[in-house]
């Protein structure tokens, strides 16, 4: 009932509808996503603890340490905010804001699962545009810009090296990543994320194993997770691009990293792991896609954490070499594979 009314309203007043849904969606997501990022940090610390035969946070907020991230957030929020004298002030101040806005931009076009109402699957997405896959991929790489802004404006040598590394790493993996998205789009005959999910009768991870691997590597690189965390390699360049950031400014950059990690895992699930597709669970059929979606994202997140604690860091020249000299040609091979499979076997 309500649904049909909304559809009707959307048909009559598309601009107003878009405005309202944007406002509501943004308000909800802005709060949800930051809490979710905190949950991811907590998850990371707990899972890391389990993998390393220790406990992780277990004193603040019960034996699971649930309130640990709350304490961290309060601490960061009430910390003095220092702008170094040598810093390029406007850029320095903008960097965390750009990071935060970037994640919101990505979140706007990202489907967060689907619900089934009246036997009809309704994806939970705010801006369901035709080229959302391209858009999301492009917006994700904006994170490198905010990192570069942070690193360059700090006027600190460690930050500067981190910033350059970040850009070099981003550009080395942007091309293979883009080619992988194209390969997926070829099989799905669409660049719309919802349609890509719906086209996955067989997961694309199965149809294009090579593409999945390349995309996963490029994604980890984009997120700056462990084997590729040269931008903030603690032992080499202290904290990389956010060396000079303190208090809430650091907090914003820190939580945005985890936001992007969450959004990146969602993107991986959408493109390759069949999104919310899965057998309908009888009793709770209403949210059964959500359950599948949530479980897949969780598995990807845990896998990312697992990778983090078990691999060593690449050297930055090895990272760029891997991107340019191995992944780029391989992604082209994958593209050809996708064309052949998509055109003649699908």
């Amino acid at each position, binding site marked *: 009932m309500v649904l049909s009314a909304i559809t009707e309203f959307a048909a009559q007043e598309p601009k107003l509808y878009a405005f309202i849904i944007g406002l509501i969606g943004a308000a909800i997501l802005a709060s949800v996503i930051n809490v979710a990022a905190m949950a991811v940090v907590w998850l990371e610390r707990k899972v890391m603890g389990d993998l390393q035969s220790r406990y992780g946070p277990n004193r603040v907020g019960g034996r699971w340490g649930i309130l640990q991230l709350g304490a961290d957030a309060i601490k960061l929020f009430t910390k003095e905010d220092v702008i170094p004298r040598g810093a390029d002030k406007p850029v320095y101040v903008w960097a965390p804001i750009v990071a935060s806005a970037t994640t919101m931009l990505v979140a706007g076009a990202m489907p967060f699962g689907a619900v089934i109402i009246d036997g009809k699957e309704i994806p939970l997405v705010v801006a369901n545009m035709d080229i959302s896959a391209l858009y999301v991929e492009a917006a994700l790489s904006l994170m490198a810009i905010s990192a570069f802004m942070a690193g360059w404006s700090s006027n600190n040598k460690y930050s500067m090296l981190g910033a350059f590394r970040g850009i070099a790493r981003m550009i080395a993996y942007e091309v293979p990543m883009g080619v992988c998205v194209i390969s997926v789009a070829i099989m799905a005959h669409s660049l719309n994320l919802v349609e890509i999910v719906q086209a996955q009768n067989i997961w694309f991870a199965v149809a294009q194993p090579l593409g999945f691997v390349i995309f996963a590597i490029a994604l980890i690189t984009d997120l700056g997770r462990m084997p590729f965390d*040269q931008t903030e390699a603690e*032992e080499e360049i202290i904290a990389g691009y956010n060396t000079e950031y303190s208090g809430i400014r650091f907090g914003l950059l820190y939580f945005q990293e985890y936001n992007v990690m969450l959004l990146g895992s969602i993107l991986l699930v959408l493109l390759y792991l069949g999104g919310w597709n899965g057998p309908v669970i009888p009793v709770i059929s209403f949210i059964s896609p959500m359950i599948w979606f949530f479980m897949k994202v969780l598995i990807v997140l845990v896998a990312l954490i697992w990778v983090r604690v078990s691999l060593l860091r690449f050297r930055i020249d090895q990272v760029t070499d891997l991107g340019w000299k191995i992944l780029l040609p391989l992604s082209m091979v994958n593209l050809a594979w996708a064309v052949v499979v998509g055109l003649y076997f699908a």
Partner: protein
Amino acid sequence: MTTANDVLNALQSAFPGAIEEAKVGPERQLWATIKPDRIVDVCKYLRDNHNFDHYSGAAGVDRIDEGLFEVTEMLASHGAHQVVALLKVKTKRDSPSVKSLTGLYWNANWYEREIWEMLGINFEGHPELYPLLLSDELMGVWPWRKDYKGYPDYTTAERAIEKVNAEGYTEYSIPPTPAEIEAGTVPVERPKYPTFREREEMEIKGESEMILHMGPQHAVVPGPFLLDILVDGERVKKAFLDVGYIHKGIEKIMENRTYVQGIPITDRLCYIAALTNNEAYCGAVERLLGIEAPERAQYIRMILEELSRIQSHLLGTAEFLTLIGSAVFSPFLYMIIDREDVLTCIESVTGARINHSFVRFGGVRNDLPDGFKDMTLDVLKMVRQKTEEYKELFLSDSIYRKRMEGVGVLSPSEARRLGVSGPPLRASDTPYDMRREDPYLLYKDMDFDVITRKEGDSNARVEVRLDEIFESCYIIEQCLDQISSGPIMAESVPKRIKPDPGEAYYRVEDHRGEMGFFVVSDGSDKPVKVKARGPVYAYFQALPPLLEGVYIADVVAIAGSMDACTSEVDR
């Protein structure tokens, strides 16, 4: 096999009149006093004709009663023979000057700089006579001289004057004590030299070059020291090292303590290798006293020192892993867990985790507790199994191999020239191990291999350490089998330790390399001079040439694979 007598005879025939007095010590040691103007020739002769290619260090002794300074040069060979030549050079106290050996031995540089800044002995022909350990403030007061009045100094903090410099940074100056001023040891004119910072700035040539401070507080440093790298992009063009941020003046302090009181100080020399430091010091004093520990005590020492070696190698490798991985890299934490078990074993005997003060002159403090053997064997079994796993892990990890292989390569000849010892030297295909080379305790009865690797890169250095864990386990097992009951202290140890006048040099295989103690006694209950020749000092000196032309990420890999310990360098 060359013996000390052969070398002495050869010297006496080659340089008639240059050798003032000479004696051959019991443990293949040659003590000789050389005329000051002939020291370079003698050393050159020894290096070229008698394989004395290892410059082991130099110690400066202040003989205030005789109005002389003595510089003792310690020379040895990398495996060609086992003679240690200790050549003394005497110089007048009012205008001290000695010829520098830097032209012959590259690594004489730091040892001579240290003697210069501490005792004020000028080294003719030394290329860079700049302070090494001391801050500029203390330059010119020559703190290790016996007539230095600034020691003991209980009021450093109270005297500190805070002042803001022109740029706005706060600086501190600590003015001399009244005693110093009264005695007139405050320098009127300090020696002239460019400061460390000025020397660095002179090296910046291009527009795109910058100097990056890595330290004194940085995740790569195991203790405060300053590693400055001149980078163009990410390529290191030149590296500079500034140490002395935790210089405590251990050698000066030990001169003012009785012999027994010196033992706890040697613990703090390098806190990872406390037991071997104890051993080296006590061994030297035992030689002075002419006593020997009973057999059981020697076994106990060996067991504990090898256990200590295991924990040191585990910690060293773990710390190194955090450098090329990160602090959340799991195997790092697993190694620390294993190390805790080994520490429990040591703790059950010595009662302390890292600073044991366990070895005594002529014995050890405690006997092994009940059940020690079973516990240790269990732990060793576990350590063996785990180390096997780590080795397999590293072998199969392609990222690890990519990061480590061919990085920081030290060729055998280069490694000898730079004067490194211990695992870095052995990784460069030079089987040089004090336990074989200069056998102490009962190591000559033990069956073990000296681990070497051909490659000489960072990976080889780590592999040598991991393999040495197996050898240590094997040695401990042999000791536990052979140990028999008996006294743990020699009976002839006097109540008050007052050795006869003389000198002794005793070196042991520290976990990181050659650790030697040079002790001079004048018959009183305090030593005249205690010189600690640490292995990490040599590593640090060798670091800047190794770092030229590598990436910043490799700096971390190379510095980490050296397994450094700042405290021992600074002393």
